[in-house]
């Protein structure tokens, strides 16, 4: 039982990182932009959130006051979200305005942002004139604060459902909200039209370029929150230079397919990926060798899902028809 609960908790935390990533990517893909820069955008969100809170905590330390938790959280979220928006705008500018290939642009964004984030993650302390690694203890603690009472008094429920910082619930709320927004509102309908057939949308008077820009930029912002959560909760406010974010970022891209472009399916998909990723840790008597094979599971499952999805060809879980294609009015 203990083991199961702790596996569940690890799965939720892991899943939350990729849930943010995939929710943002679904928004972007609904508008027809296949942004393979998601891992990069998550990198950007993680590092900029960290940089923001790092400078705030330093300023507080210099002034001799304790950092205020809510300010820590807000600064981190705003910095991370803004970084994601900038990443999304850069992608949109290159692919929508300059019509560069989306696959190559996305990969380039991931390479660039990975370098950018790891460079500053590794060198920020030195550049700021200090020694050692960056660590933002106060901010991380604020991010990991649990709800009072609910997280301690409800027995199993406290341990399985109310055991986490607020970002876990934010991720679920965002996914549900976006699913509803894309499916049920006029703006969502327009966005889907842009992703399915930009020429038709254009003829109907929908500003295609504006929609593509906005969806990708806001989607980038949401994906970036995954990076923020990774750094602040998963890594407890330190920088991990092992490329952990990149791995999770690619899983987020895979999760979009797994969820059939529906944010609400992304929720349980994300937790399933999380459980599969940690399973090896909780199986007794697994040698290190076989645990490496177990870590293959989430990727293997994704492949199986991909294959099944393409075999069944159900209409309602297919990618947007114009996904990844550039749109140029004069070339119809």
């Amino acid at each position, binding site marked *: 039982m203990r083991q199961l609960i702790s596996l569940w908790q690890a799965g939720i935390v892991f899943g939350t990182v990729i849930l943010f990533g995939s929710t943002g990517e679904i928004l972007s893909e609904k508008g027809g932009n*296949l942004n*393979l820069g998601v891992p990069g955008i998550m990198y950007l969100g993680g590092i900029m959130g960290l940089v923001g809170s790092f400078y705030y905590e330093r300023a507080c330390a210099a002034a001799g006051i304790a950092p205020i938790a809510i300010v820590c959280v807000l600064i981190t979220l705003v910095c991370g979200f803004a970084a994601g928006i900038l990443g999304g705008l*850069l992608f949109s500018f*290159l692919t929508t305005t*300059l*019509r*560069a*290939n989306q*696959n*190559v*642009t996305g*990969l*380039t*964004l*991931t*390479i*660039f*942002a*990975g*370098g*950018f*984030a*790891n*460079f*500053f*993650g*590794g*060198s920020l302390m*030195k*550049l700021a004139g200090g020694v050692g690694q960056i660590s933002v203890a106060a901010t991380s603690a604020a991010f990991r604060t649990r709800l009072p009472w609910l997280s301690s008094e409800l027995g199993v429920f406290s341990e399985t459902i109310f055991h986490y910082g607020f970002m876990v619930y934010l991720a679920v709320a965002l996914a549900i909200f976006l699913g509803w927004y894309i499916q049920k509102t006029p703006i969502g309908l327009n966005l889907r039209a842009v992703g399915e057939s930009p020429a038709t949308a254009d003829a109907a008077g929908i500003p295609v370029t504006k929609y593509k820009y906005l969806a990708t930029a806001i989607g980038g912002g949401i994906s970036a929150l995954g990076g923020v959560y990774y750094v602040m909760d998963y890594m407890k406010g330190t920088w991990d*230079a092992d490329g952990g974010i990149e*791995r999770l970022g*690619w899983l987020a*891209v*895979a999760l979009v*397919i797994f969820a059939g472009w529906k944010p609400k399916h992304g929720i349980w998909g994300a937790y399933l990926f999380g459980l599969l990723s940690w399973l090896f840790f909780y199986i007794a008597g697994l*040698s*290190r*060798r*076989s645990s*490496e*094979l177990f*870590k*293959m599971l989430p*990727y*293997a499952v*994704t*492949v199986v899902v*991909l*294959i099944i*999805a*393409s*075999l069944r060809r159900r209409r309602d879980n297919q*990618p947007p028809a114009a996904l990844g294609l550039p749109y*140029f009015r*004069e*070339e119809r």
Partner: protein
Amino acid sequence: MKHRESEHAAGPVLRIEKRTQEMRGYMSWGIRAGALIAALLVCAVIIWAIVRINPLRVYAAMFQGSFGTKNKMWVSIRDICMLVCIGVGLAPAFKMRFWNIGAEGQILVGGLAAAACMIYFKNLPTGVLLLMMLPLSAIAGGVWGFVPGVFKAKWNTNETLFTLMMNYIAIQLTAYFVALWENPFGSNTVGVINGITRAGWFPEILGQKYLLNVIIVAVLVVGMYFYLRNSKQGYEIAVVGESENTARYAGIRVPHVVTRTVTISGAICGIAGFLAVAGASHTISTSTAGGKGFTAIIVAWMAKFNTFVMVLIGALLVFLDKGSIEIATQFGLSDHVSKMLTGIILFFVLGSEFFIEYKLHFRAANKEVAK
């Protein structure tokens, strides 16, 4: 409304038009070179902002770091070979518009095959061993390409994500074998394989240990150039890439071409894994591919699948990589700065393609457009 009409009558301030004739070769390469120079300037500013020394001196130091000594030069040449080899492998797939993001995995399984030969057949003479490793690596990489290829061909399964997932499956497979072959026990690394006997290592040719890498890659570069340009299969790849419907009307068996091309692509990436293990590191780890599979996509794309141009672009990227690592070490900074600079250069070159593909008309400059 009235306002819009009057604006319409005068024509938009900026009008974009696709070029009907392809731009002359020297013009388009001129634009790319211009983008490159602009990118290097931006990089120089960034470097200056970080370390506060004259960027020209930085570039000089970078050159020292990458090609400064004979030894460094050969290591750089070895790395260029590796990058170009992967780029050559990716070229046919990408020309066919098959987004093979899976080079990383294909390199790793190729490397695994090579390492397995070195470990299990260490008593064979090196020549025989190498002749066995080359095809086995190619087969391993080929299988890693064939699987997503055949699903794409038969059921149109999304190849971008399939090949991406195959990377991670290959990484875990490598982690498994690293644990199996670890040496010394408990280190979780394979260590240098056959360090004393040098069985399965590339032999020195004319006193140069990396000359064989150059020869193999040169053969691939020339071969792929003519394969894509002059062979029937190369023509089929081009047609399928332009339009699958056209290809079908022309009687090309599209599924067959897709599967075959992706298998070839994977096989060459597998050979890159062979180069990495037998011709460079003499060991295997999960970072044997180290992101080169992704970088090489950009090499292939920017070179417009011209394998000779790939050599130039590969050289530029390796120069940047080695050079910025040199700078980072000198200043005690993280060497990830090289990826950042590479990214900036790629952004510029990607953006510059727009000015090659499209013509811009400004209202003031083109009166007849306004009529």
